[in-house]
């Protein structure tokens, strides 16, 4: 088992390495002078030269890459010219806000999605199933930004229950979180349903019933415990989905997280920030996948050996 864990850790590091390499090469191969790209247009010739030396653009590629990795580990990836501060600081400032929004959305999606999926599976083919899956299909078909605006239209403008944008109080969180969680809630309930259906068809469920266990115990004890494995998978997937969705949601609600940040960076051609953000996202995703795989070891005894 320890071998497995070490193997996974190694794979994660390799993945991170590959992503860093890809980003590194992308900047170097894009048209134009990399140093020029990494500085605002107002930079002077001397500044550009200084950066060229610092990045080692006159050195052979492997050396450059080595310096690049060193910078990466030190979290020194340049200065955003839009915000005029070190990139790491900007991301560090914006990310917690996205994490808050994403976290609340994830919890909401799980709290509603899992029970919905289980009920749909247990009552397969009956009305509850159709209704639940009807909601799920709708949730996966609604464009997030449109949903956001519609919610704003109804609950902010018409009813004045919630503010239209910004942060501050919990009321500011309600509409964005609801918007963001729609898709993942639908996704989770669908996957829980199909996972549960698979489980309920397994022989050990029949054995559990044959022992005289009540249906509730069969589902909640035997079924649920095996459901944890696909649920963990779904949660891992959801992180990526939520990150993507937050870009849109933050745009709609002017929520000052990394979504808004990257959009601004893109329109300002703020390459240092774009580059750093890409690496950051890759890092988050790789970490999440690693955690999911390690959780599997805990959840599924068959892997342990």
């Amino acid at each position, binding site marked *: 088992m320890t071998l497995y864990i070490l193997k996974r850790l190694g794979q994660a590091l390799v993945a991170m390495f590959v992503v860093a390499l890809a980003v590194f090469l992308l900047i170097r191969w894009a048209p134009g002078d990399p140093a020029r790209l990494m500085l605002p247009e107002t930079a002077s010739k001397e500044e550009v030269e200084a950066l060229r030396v610092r990045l080692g653009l006159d050195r052979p590629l492997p050396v450059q890459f080595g310096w690049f990795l060193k910078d990466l580990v030190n979290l020194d990836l340049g200065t955003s010219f839009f915000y005029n501060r070190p990139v790491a600081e900007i991301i560090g400032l914006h990310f917690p806000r996205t994490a808050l929004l994403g976290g609340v959305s994830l919890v909401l999606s799980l709290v509603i999605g899992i029970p919905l999926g289980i009920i749909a599976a247990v009552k397969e083919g009956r009305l509850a199933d159709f209704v639940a899956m009807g909601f*799920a299909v709708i949730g996966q078909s609604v464009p997030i930004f449109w949903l956001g605006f519609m919610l704003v*239209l109804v609950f902010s403008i018409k009813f004045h229950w919630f503010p239209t944008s910004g942060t501050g109080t919990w009321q500011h969180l309600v509409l964005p979180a609801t918007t963001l969680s729609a898709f993942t809630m639908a996704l989770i309930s669908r996957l829980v349903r199909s996972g549960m259906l698979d489980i309920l068809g397994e022989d050990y469920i029949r054995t559990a019933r044959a022992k005289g266990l009540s249906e509730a115990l069969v589902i909640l004890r035997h079924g649920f415990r095996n459901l944890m494995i696909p649920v963990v998978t779904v949660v891992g997937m959801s992180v990526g989905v939520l990150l993507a969705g937050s870009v849109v949601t933050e745009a709609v609600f002017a929520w000052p997280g990394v979504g808004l940040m990257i959009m601004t960076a*893109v329109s300002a051609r703020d390459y240092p920030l774009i580059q750093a953000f890409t690496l950051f996202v890759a890092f988050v995703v790789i970490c999440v996948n690693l955690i999911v795989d390690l959780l599997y070891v805990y959840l599924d005894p068959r892997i342990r050996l």
Partner: protein
Amino acid sequence: MLDNRKVISERKKKIQRILRNPRIVWGGLVIVVLLFGAVFAPYLSSKDPLKQNLLSRLMAPQGFSGPHLLGTDSLGRDIFSRILYGARISLTVGFLTVIISGVIGVMLGLFAGYYKGKTDSILSRAADIQLSIPVIIMAIVLLAMVGPSVFNIIMVMAISRWMLYFRLVRSLVFSLMASPMIDAARVIGVSRRRLFVKHLLANLWTPIIVVTTQQMAQIILLEATLSFLGVGIPPSVPSWGMMVSQGRNYIETAWWVITFPGLAIFVATLAINFVGDGLRDFLDPRRRF
């Protein structure tokens, strides 16, 4: 004892069953309507979707009583005709993307499944890594670098989607290759090309179709989102996502500018998802939805 007549009537029965599935029927109906609207747009609406008329900006929807069925936007353009023309863009982009990513993904999946070994490991790792990166982020970054245009958006989306086809085809090919049927074919000496086409692909096309419908829906959503964010289809071309983005400042005063384009996206995606679900129901009846 199977005779041809029995096989043919089995197929007929299957098709009948497909057509009886309510989701496929309703979803299919909506799609047909959309296609109709997209193709016959110039006949259905006399208004030029690009024509700006600042005198009639932000007019409320007039239904059938006035010239502007769904109202006008901030530049006086008729919303209804913009939606119709927007359908052309969205459906075309979606279709082309699915085809391109499908072809790439299926081919790579076939190679990985057939040749296994190194080819497979490299391709799989690449797919895994790419699969983890949230599509939107990648799309935004790439599009930021190459600039928005219809061609670019199709390529970017195709590149971000091939992995799903790849994974599916790869695992199916693995299990097919292990089957005695393929061994038998190879023993007879079937050429590689024939093996690919007749034996492998023939068994793959049903799941590929199901995945394609799912992908189509997601791609329409993705394109709309990217256009909304401004990195998708350029503003000169009418697209639903862009329409929503352009209307956001008028949400309080002219709700229709945002609502209708978004509704179009929703309905289109929903219809395609319905059809996809219905098809999957039917092809794998044990596991619905």
